[in-house]
């Protein structure tokens, strides 16, 4: 496949190394045998997709690698990318019982990567497939957005014989898995290869087609048995302060997307310093990416205290190691554009003004939640998220199901995958196709 990442001075390809490379056979064997195969395992409970983690690890240990891959894929069709992008420290590995005994937890993400990638290699070697789609039914589903939620949903539907078409406004499929994930976690080409694998099941992706502009949702409702809304979040939010539209002020996801996928994009040679506004994982990600790309001074400017930052602790620690500095209790009030940019803030408690000078400013204060506007009848909660019934993934509009960032306001890839899967299973249950499937889920 053609590499679509075209990184400034090839830095990303050259300088970012994968945080969780593929295990060797020895590593996998030793790590798999370290797992004690808990019953009703806390790691499985902590996994938003409810993967039978001790089960797949035991299969690695017994040498049944493709069985291990299948155990994962059956509930998480994006097992390859989630193995690398899941914050396992916060999820499965964070719940490993070993933590309670001060023993390092099982490296579940890397074992998952080993199992899933070896499973796909087995497919290539044997010219065989782990899954084969059931006979075609007469049902068909349209999916909005080709992010992880829709991909998982379409994957399960096609395996059950339901014709599925995904409409994606961007040129590339994959959603934030392709445009947003830090490259040291997952390269864009790896995410795209995973989509190629999923597409073998038989669903279609039409890119460059925006629902609501190029095609109406009512049209979809008329022509399909159901519509799955997996539109994710919208544009980067703006703080609403003077100067926020100055040149050199970026939105975090806008900039990350350029770093990852824009062939023509390069960091200016004289880019000396960047101030990142925000305290979540996107703020930490873009700060780390810029620092790793060699920007000498990268700061995170946050309105509350560091301990209140919603970003993960392990990410924060990594950012610090990479030289990112943190400034707390600084609430942005204005951006002044001189030769450089001046971020003016006031102290959260005392109101005392402070100024941060830099070449660029990146705003990482969240994204718009606009998916609910696609159809007038969609119930939206106070945070702007589309409301669904968690048992059926149905929205307030008949025949519209939803999942992923547009219903949870922005969680992880694995949450979106589990939502998409559950929506697919809910449709299949409703239509009496195949055996009813359900996985115990922790929606928290």
């Amino acid at each position, binding site marked *: 496949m053609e590499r679509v990442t075209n990184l400034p001075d090839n830095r990303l390809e050259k300088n970012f190394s994968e945080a969780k490379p593929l295990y060797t056979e*020895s590593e996998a064997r030793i790590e798999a045998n370290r797992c004690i195969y808990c019953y009703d395992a806390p790691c499985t409970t902590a996994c938003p997709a409810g993967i039978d983690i001790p089960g797949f690890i*035991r299969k690695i240990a017994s040498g049944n690698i493709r069985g291990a891959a299948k155990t994962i894929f059956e509930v998480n069709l994006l097992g390859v990318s989630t193995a690398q992008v899941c914050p396992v420290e916060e999820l499965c590995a964070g719940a490993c019982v070993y933590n309670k005994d001060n023993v390092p937890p099982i490296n579940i993400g890397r074992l998952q990567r080993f199992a899933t990638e070896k499973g796909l290699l087995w497919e290539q070697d044997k010219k065989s497939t782990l899954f084969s789609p059931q006979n075609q039914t007469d049902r068909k589903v349209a999916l909005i957005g080709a992010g992880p939620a829709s991909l998982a949903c379409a994957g399960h539907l096609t395996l059950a014989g339901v014709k599925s078409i995904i409409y994606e406004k961007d040129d590339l499929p994959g959603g934030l898995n392709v445009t947003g994930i830090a490259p040291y976690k997952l390269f864009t080409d790896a995410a795209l290869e995973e989509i190629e694998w999923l597409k073998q099941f038989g669903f279609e992706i039409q890119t460059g087609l925006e629902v609501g502009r190029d095609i109406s949702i009512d049209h979809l409702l008329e022509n399909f048995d159901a519509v799955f809304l997996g539109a994710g979040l919208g544009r980067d939010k703006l703080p609403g302060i003077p100067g926020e539209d100055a040149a050199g002020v970026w939105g975090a996801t806008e900039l990350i997307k350029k770093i990852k996928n824009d062939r023509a994009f390069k960091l200016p040679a004289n880019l000396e310093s960047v101030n990142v506004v925000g305290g979540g994982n996107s703020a930490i990600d873009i700060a780390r990416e810029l620092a790793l790309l060699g920007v000498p001074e990268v700061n995170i400017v946050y309105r509350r205290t560091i301990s209140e930052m919603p970003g993960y602790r392990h990410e924060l620690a990594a950012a610090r190691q990479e030289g990112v500095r943190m400034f707390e209790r600084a609430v942005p009030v204005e951006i002044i554009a001189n030769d450089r940019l001046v971020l003016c803030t006031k102290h959260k408690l005392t109101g005392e003004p402070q100024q941060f000078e830099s070449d660029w400013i990146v705003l990482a204060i969240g994204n718009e939640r606009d998916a609910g506007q696609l159809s007038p009848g969609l119930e939206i909660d106070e945070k702007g998220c589309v409301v669904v019934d968690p048992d059926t993934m149905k929205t307030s509009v008949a025949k519209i199901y939803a999942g992923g960032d547009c219903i949870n306001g922005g969680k992880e890839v694995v949450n979106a995958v589990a939502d998409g899967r559950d929506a697919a299973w809910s449709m299949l249950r409703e239509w009496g196709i195949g055996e009813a499937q359900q996985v115990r889920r922790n929606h928290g």
Partner: protein
Amino acid sequence: MANLAINMCGIKSPNPFWLASGPPANCGEQVMRAFDAGWGGAVWKTLGKPIVNVSSRLGAVDHKGNRMSGLNNIELITDRPLDTNFKEIYAVKKRYQEQAVVVSLMVESKAEWREIIRRAEDAGADGLELNFGCPHGMCERGMGSSVGQEPAILEEITAWAVDYANTPVLIKLTPNITDILDPGIAAAKGGAHGLSLINTIKSIIGVNLETMVPLPSVRDKGTNGGYCGPAVKPIALHMVAALARDPRIQIPLSGIGGIGNWRDAAEFIALGATSVQVCTAVMHYGYRIVEDMIDGLSNYLDDMNMASVSNLIGKAVPNFTEWGNLDLNYRITANIDEEKCIGCQLCYIACLDGAHQCIHTRQSHCSAYHGESDHGIYPRTEIQPPVLHKANGGIPDHVPFVDEDECIGCNLCQLVCPVPGCITMIEQDSKIAAKTWQEMEV
């Protein structure tokens, strides 16, 4: 997907995986949960005359931090009323027709055997297993392994049972004998329809060095018990294979001993077992282990292009032979992959102290030219260490090398090497025709 169903002397089950008679098959509720998890059959906890039990009952050896590499028990047969057991067997069979329920029995007199066989069959047993294997407690009273150790008595009781029974009769053998063929042949002669083995191996698992009481201890005393679990698998494999290749034994075998995953099971089947039974691994991890056993075995059979598990039964038996039939002129030598080597030098010390002094380190080589010895810690003077082609993690001087002319091909270095595929045994063309010890003697 390969067909896993088996028919063992008329006992049919959807797969070859059965619970062995023991705590996991103690009551109906357990057996039903096991069937729900995927087990193809269960051999009910041995039934007999009302019996007693003790606390504690189990002891185990751990190996390098791995819990329960070997398990020892001093438990006796069922301590629940016979009526209750039979009622539950009936209930299980009513709900689960596809799965096999084999009832394990152990009584003394002819009349008792007749009575208990009738009751087990009335309850719906698909087959019977006579427990001639229990090596503790029951044998002190003339039952269990004390029958298994006396071929004549074993044959006689087998004949009674076969006579009374309308369902297939399996004889469960004890490994606590000199030659497994003796009880095996006796059972076959007595008319048994199949053999199950092994039961547990007589053992003492350890001693409490403070109280001086053997483990597991019952207040201030301990007794010998039966050993099972991963540690006993090689012993069980040999006994199954020995029966499988003996022409006097033409009845199917149920392999037991240390089975914990599909690989273990496949080995038993390749060496002649039709079904396999599991006790310790279920006691350790629960019924859920059967999921990988089914999935893994089926994937393996697919890979081997075997449409059914019956194609695997006994596949390795023709290659199990006497020592005297091995080719004395076949030669392999060790080869160390310098790229994979991590420099632990475990192969070096193993060969130096525990084998034939054919692996050398680069350090020992330096002194070799100062010439102390022709062999041993220093390589023979004519041996040059091979040039290392690739730098290896900064420790190239820790990559040992093999003196191939001296290597006798024992495998030890390969067995101790922690890196898969680093040490391989490579066939050397000995340029001499194959010759066995038998052939040398004629």
